[in-house]
């Protein structure tokens, strides 16, 4: 459902234990993720990896198994990418929170 002012309708936050905060904002088009925006106080090299992660979730069906989404996120990152303070698993946790 779209928020009235076109701000993303779903929002989730997850503080990785011993790591950093991961936030997600998104809309749903039917059962598909759309307008996915991951943010937080984590570290990611190179920084363009954030777009890779957002794109990897775009259009994904909400009933996709977690393991598949994790694999999709990891595959989307460039080989030299490094995540520090979060992980693909953490992104899925925050995604599930946003959808709950």
């Amino acid at each position, binding site marked *: 459902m779209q928020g009235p002012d076109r701000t993303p309708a779903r929002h989730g*936050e*997850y*503080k990785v*234990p*011993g*790591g*950093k*905060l991961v*936030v997600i*904002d998104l809309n749903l088009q039917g059962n598909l993720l759309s307008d996915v*925006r*991951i*943010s*937080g*106080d*984590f*570290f*990611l*090299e*190179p*920084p363009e990896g*954030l777009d890779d992660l957002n794109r990897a979730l775009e259009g994904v069906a909400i009933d996709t198994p977690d393991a598949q989404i994790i694999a999709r996120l990891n595959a989307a990152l460039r080989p030299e990418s*490094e995540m*520090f*303070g979060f992980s693909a698993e953490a992104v899925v946790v925050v995604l599930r929170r946003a959808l709950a």
Partner: protein
Amino acid sequence: MTPSDSTLSDKPTPLPPTQWRDYQWELLRTPALDPLMHMALDAVLADEVAAGRRAPSIRLWEWTRAAVVIGRFQSLKNEVDPVGAQRHGVEVVRRVSGGGAMFVEPGNTITYSVYAPGDLVRGMSFQDSYAFLDRWVIDALGTLGIKAWYQPLNDIATDTGKIGGAAQARRGGAVLHHVTMAYDIDADKMVEVLRIGKEKLSDKGTTSAKKRVDPLRSQTGLARDVIIEHMMQTFRTQNGLVDANVQAHEWALARQQIEQKYGTAQWLALVP
């Protein structure tokens, strides 16, 4: 995998190719700068070190005005209360490194950047490189009577609370490592300009952002300048350090990058 590969993997992690003392470190001190100039200079100076045009350097930050500096990946809306920021005349800028938002007022923080060649930390985990690049600061605080340590991932902490936080960005062959430590803090103002959610504090053992930070002023009773001079002296003794200046072409590049990047609405709202 060849037999020699497996033999190699049994050896301890090799030391990085270079050590602090392999470089002539330069200390850069400037007059107070606008928040945007700090953002741009960090990018420019790191890139100049990466290109081999500048010696590895340390820069001390002084501020012309109050600022909130948000991390590269933070949502502007989630982190900053625009009404509170405007009411207190706080400028909001986005930096090139990840990590969390910081609230600074002139004279209230000790902020510095280390522009290091990547070789100095090559082969280290990110985690190890944070602690390694601030070892001299931990030592400096120790000789001032403050037992501080690196609290993973990126905090400098003492028994009584967090003192500061570090952030890194890898830029080409260089590492930008910058740190802000609280010298004094207007915690009431801080919570009016920053939005600090409960989730963020969930594993910090406190429910209050105000209580989380214990600044250097209350911990040492020393003037800010005294702490800074002691830190620089510690670095000088351990690694060598000569006074130097930001060069004219570096200022020019930084001004250009403010205009084209760091001062634009697109960059500030990169993550809206």
